[in-house]
Structure formats: C-alpha cells, structure tokens
C-alpha cells in the first residue's frame, strides 16, 4: 500500500503534471464561469488533450478541471446572478445579493474557501470509504452487478426530472441505444440496418457529448434577444479579504461539515450530482438556521452551504466509480472513459491491479483543491473578464470543440456525424422534458448489465437466483422501493396541488 501511495505521489508531484493540473484548474474555472458552459463540457473538451499523456497524468488533469469547474460556477452566480453551471443555482440566492450589497469580493472569497474545504472533506471521505467498499465489491458476482445496475438506473430515473415515467423511458432508450452494434459477448452485429457507421456501435462518449453538450449549447440560443444583448455588470474594483474570509468560513464548522458530508453522500448516489447537492445543502442550512428569514438576503451561511455542498460531490462521485466501476455522473463517466482509453478497466479490481493509480487519484484530488484555491485567490480578478465573452462566440466555438472531441476519440468522422444526430435527439428530448441523465447512464451501463446478466445465467440458468442471493435481492428490493417512493411522492404532490 505504502509503495503504491509513494508511486502515485511521485507521479502527481512531477513538475509537468503539476503544470498541466494548474492549466486544468484554470480551464475548469474559466469554463464554469461562462454561463451555459458546464463542467461536463469542460471535461469533455479536456479528454482528447489527455490521450497522449500517461494515464495518471491524464486523470489528474481531468480531476483538476473537475474541481476547478465546481468553483468557477460561483463567479457568474455571485456577480451576475446567473449560475455559471447548474450546480451553482443555489449559490446565486445569497452570493448575488451580497455582491449587490457592495461586497462582491467577500461573496467570491466565501465561495472559494467553502469549495476548497468541501473538496478536502470529500477527499478524506473518499480515501476512507472507497477501499473497504472495493474490497466488498470484488466478492460480488454477476447477479449482484446486474442488480446494482438496475438499482442505479431506477434511482437516477426517480431522482431527476419532473416525471418518473419519462425518466424510466429515457433510461430504457439509453439501454436500447447500447444494444446497437456488436453483441458484447459474442460480437454478433445487431441493429445496424446495413448502415456502416453503426457497425462498431455508438461510442458512449459521443452519445454523452451530443446529449449533454450539444443540447445544452442549443438551449442557450432559445431566447434570441437575450443572446444578442451584451453588457457587463461586473464592478471595476473588488476587494477579496482572503484570510479574513477564511476565518469567517471556519467559524461555521457545523454548516461546513454538514454541507460537505451531504454533498459527498449526494455525489455518491448515481445520477444525483452537484446541482442537487447545491440546492439540498442550501435548504438544509436554512432549515437548521436560527435566522432562516435572513437566507436570500446575502448572508455567509447560504454561500458556504451551497458551495461546500456542490464541491463535495466531486469526491463523493468517485466513490462508486473507483469502488464499483459505476459512474455516478456524466463527469465520472468521462473519467471512466479516459481510463478505458488507456486500457485500464474501472471497478473493484482497480485497487488490486492499479493501486498506484487509485492513490494517485486521491492525491490528485487534494492537490487539485489546493491549486484551485491558489489560482482563485491569486488571480480571481482576471477570471472575471471571462463572463463578458458574448454567447455568439461561445456557442459556435464550443460546438466545434465538441466535434473535435468526438473525432479525436477514435479518429472516425462517422462519430462526428453521430454527434450531430445524437445532439438533435438530446435537444428534442430536453425540450419535451425528458431527463437526460438516465439516458446517458443507460448507454454506459447497458453493455455491463447485459454482460453480467448473461454471465449469471451461464453459471446458473435459474432466474430466481437473483432473488435468493442476499445482496442481489437487497439491491432489487431497493430498486423497487426507489420507484415506489417516487410514485408515492408524485401521488402526494398531485393530491396537494389544487384541482386544475
């Protein structure tokens, strides 16, 4: 263990790795500061740049983009009242009023310090929780894995979007898309309909880029007048009071710890990412406060809770990825893909086969949070100009970067055509109020689910084994309960709503 730790440490602390990580932090902060440009997009665009790097270096750079991205969203949230990313929505509730009240520097510094402590706490939880979970996961058979995937898909469908049924349909559409191409066990072609570009299947990263990035970019163009309006609300002089604000954040240990741990938990639940953590931690801080009426007027507790919460999901999201091989979010899925590009399979065996890589990831998380803090405190005032880039530049440029990312994945131009088609599908589904997360997770988890189902039945053709093995049965019961809970909540909401 110590050897692996030291090996990981030496790779992360290499000068070129630190330099690339610093650039990654800057890229993440800048990307997330631009309204409409999300952490997912930043990670997607970083991926092709890491192909030529050693595996750990590539992952470390992507983690630094990830950590920086969760912080960058607060810049436009605080200064413009526009969440830079969906995971900084609740940050606007208090950071923006605080900035309007003449304290923009304090609002930004509070957010940066809260993000830093949230990431550090989540990294500690990750280091403590992931190894024992992986040790258990190694003992799981194909029955448990299949049941785990069923549970992951149902919980994502239950958690996101306005309608459970549309969430489940989106997940099933993702599973259907995953069946296109060669059968994962025998390699037989399926559903290609004579179209050559479908023969290798739909690469899940292309689907992911199309579904999230392209559909989000197009959504940014929906209000022509708003898109064409330009102007800046950023004040010319900002005082950050860095260390005074650090003490202010640390003087709220219960809020900080509660929000961070809640963020870790939400991050570890597949599908429930930073956007949910951001709102949930803000809500919990407000409930626990002696002065809830002050929330929304520009108080420090609101900024600390929302920013610590969304940043803590970064470490939490890595727990199921490293321990179980199940990506909890789109960003985790891209991290998983980048490991696969380097020929490393993610899952419980990662600890056994690539322990140095896992410890390197832990160290990279901690180093990324320090880099983010340094970069933000030293050069925040320069990042503020990023929010002034007009959308007419951002949208086409990022669209091109998505096309480059899709092409660079396999050097196949047909992947770029698929990107356009999937982007259109994603945009239409988004307009029709389908949650997109279950669809992408369906595409990613479909082949894993099919492989494990078929392996399980090859070992024992009796389907009831799924219900007689305790862990498998518990996971299937949890899947049923998550759907039942969601249906019950929906019924309650409908009864509570006034009759139309």
């Amino acid at each position, binding site marked *: 263990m110590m050897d692996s730790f030291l090996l990981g440490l030496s790779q992360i602390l290499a000068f070129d790795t630190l330099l690339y990580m610093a650039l990654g932090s800057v890229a993440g902060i800048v990307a997330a500061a631009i*309204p409409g440009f999300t952490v997912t997009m930043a990670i997607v665009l970083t991926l092709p*740049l890491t192909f030529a790097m050693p595996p750990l270096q590539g992952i470390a750079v992507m983690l630094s983009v990830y950590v920086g991205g969760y912080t960058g969203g607060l810049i436009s949230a605080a200064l413009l009242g526009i969440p830079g990313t969906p995971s900084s929505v609740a940050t606007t509730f208090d950071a923006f009023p605080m900035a309007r009240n003449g304290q923009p520097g304090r609002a930004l510094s509070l957010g940066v310090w809260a993000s830093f402590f949230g990431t550090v706490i989540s990294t500690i939880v990750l280091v403590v929780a992931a190894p024992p979970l992986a040790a258990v996961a190694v003992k799981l058979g194909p029955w448990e894995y299949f049941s785990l995937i069923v549970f992951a898909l149902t919980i994502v469908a239950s958690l996101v979007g306005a309608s459970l049924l549309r969430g489940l*349909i989106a997940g099933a559409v993702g599973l259907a898309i995953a069946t296109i191409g060669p059968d994962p066990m025998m390699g*037989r072609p399926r559903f290609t309909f004579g179209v050559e570009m479908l023969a290798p299947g739909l690469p899940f990263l292309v689907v992911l880029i199309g579904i999230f990035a392209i559909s989000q970019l197009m959504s940014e163009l929906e209000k022509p007048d708003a898109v064409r309006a330009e102007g800046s609300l950023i004040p010319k002089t900002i005082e950050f009071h860095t260390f005074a604000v650090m003490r202010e954040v640390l003087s709220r240990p219960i809020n900080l710890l509660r929000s961070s741990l809640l963020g870790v938990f939400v991050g570890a639940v597949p599908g429930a*990412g930073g*956007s949910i953590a951001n709102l949930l931690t803000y809500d919990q801080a407000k409930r626990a406060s002696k002065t809830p009426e002050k929330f929304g007027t520009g108080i420090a507790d609101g900024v600390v809770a929302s920013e610590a919460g969304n940043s803590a999901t970064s470490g939490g999201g890595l727990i199921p990825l490293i321990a179980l091989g199940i990506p909890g979010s789109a960003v985790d899925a891209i991290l998983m893909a980048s490991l696969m590009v380097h020929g490393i399979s993610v899952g419980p065996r990662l600890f056994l086969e690539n322990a140095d890589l896992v410890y390197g990831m832990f160290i990279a998380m901690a180093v990324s949070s320090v880099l983010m803090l340094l970069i933000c405190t030293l050069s925040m005032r320069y990042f503020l100009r990023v929010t002034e880039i007009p959308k007419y530049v951002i949208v086409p440029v990022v669209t091109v*970067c998505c096309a480059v990312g899709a092409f*660079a994945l396999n050097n196949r131009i047909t992947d770029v055509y698929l990107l*356009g088609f999937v982007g259109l599908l994603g945009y239409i589904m988004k307009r029709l109020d389908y949650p*997109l997360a279950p669809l992408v997770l369906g595409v990613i988890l479909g082949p894993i689910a099919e492989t494990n189902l078929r392996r399980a039945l090859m070992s024992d053709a009796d389907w009831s084994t799924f219900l007689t093995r305790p862990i498998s049965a518990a996971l299937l019961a949890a899947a049923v309960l998550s759907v039942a809970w969601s249906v019950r909540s929906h019924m309650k909401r409908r009864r509570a709503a006034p009759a139309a």
Partner: protein
Amino acid sequence: MSGSTVTEPPAPNGMEGASASSAPDGETANEARAAELAKLASYVFFLLGAGVFFTVSLGLPDSRWEPLGAGSFPRIVMGFLALLCVLAIAGSARRLARIGLPDGLARLSGAAFVEHRLVISVFVAFAVYLALMRPLGFAISTFLFLIVAQLIVARRTLKSALIALVVAVVFSFGLNLLFAKVFLVFLPRGILGGLLG
C-alpha cells in the same frame, strides 16, 4: 449577455449541463396542451421504435453456449420500453381528455419556429458543416461554420464581424495546427491534404 437575475432555479437534473427543462413560466393553457400532445407523440415514436427493434431482435441467432442469445437482452429492453410507453400514452391520453386538444396548432407551430429560429439556423449550419467536413477538411469547413454561426447569432455590426473573423481563424486553422503539431491528432484534411499540418 444578459444581466437578468435568476428568480426560478431550474429543476435539478443531477448532471451538469442537463437540467430538466420545464415548461416556461407564463405558459398558456393552450401551449400546455400542445406540449402534452408533443409528449404523446414522443411516446408513440419510442413505442414504434421499440416495436421495430423487438421485431428485428427476433431474427438474431440464439447461442449454443448460453441460455440467452444475442437477441434476448434487446428483447427484454424493448419489451420494458414498450410497456413504459404504453403507460405513458395512457396517462397522456387521459390528461389530454381532461384538458382538451390545443387550438390553432399551425399557429403555435409557427410561433415555436420563430422562437427557436436561432436554434434551428445553427443546427442547419452544423449539419452542413458536418457534411462538408470530409470533402473540405476540418480547417476550411470549421472556418466557414464559425463565420456563419457567429453571424447568425450575433447582432450584425462591424465589431461582431471582426470578432467572428478572428475567432473563426483561431479555432479552425489554429486548432487544426495545435492538434497536428502538439497532440499528433490529424483532423480531417480534405482538399488541402497535408498543407495545414
């Protein structure tokens, strides 16, 4: 960039960049009916898709080595999808029976088209860009796409045209050069062959 404040947080979706789009504020009852009809159409579309895939999967060979063949898992998925779609269609039909069908569907479609004119224009430009990428190469097709897309979205002034030109050069020829020289990834070269790196 608009400087308007956010008053209504979007529904959390759980993944970056994928916030669920709910119906816009102030949506009229007629628009709500049209939205429900569109959702119903999507359920029917997915049901038909599931039916086609299920039928095709029946022709996939069974395996001698395992109980499930290449077509079994797709059949389970398509059956599940079809079941969900039937439930959704039933719910949507009930809702439409309660709230009624939308009036002036053609007018609503026209209004939606106008509201989404930028999205449609940029999507069309993107489709043309993808079609031209192989024959013209990445650099030239990207340059043209960036110029066209920026001029579609921006207010047409001399300043925005100059910005569009600079951005188009940097992110087409510049990006092509960066990938070729630094990352050793060769983007489609098209008619210029290896002239651009």
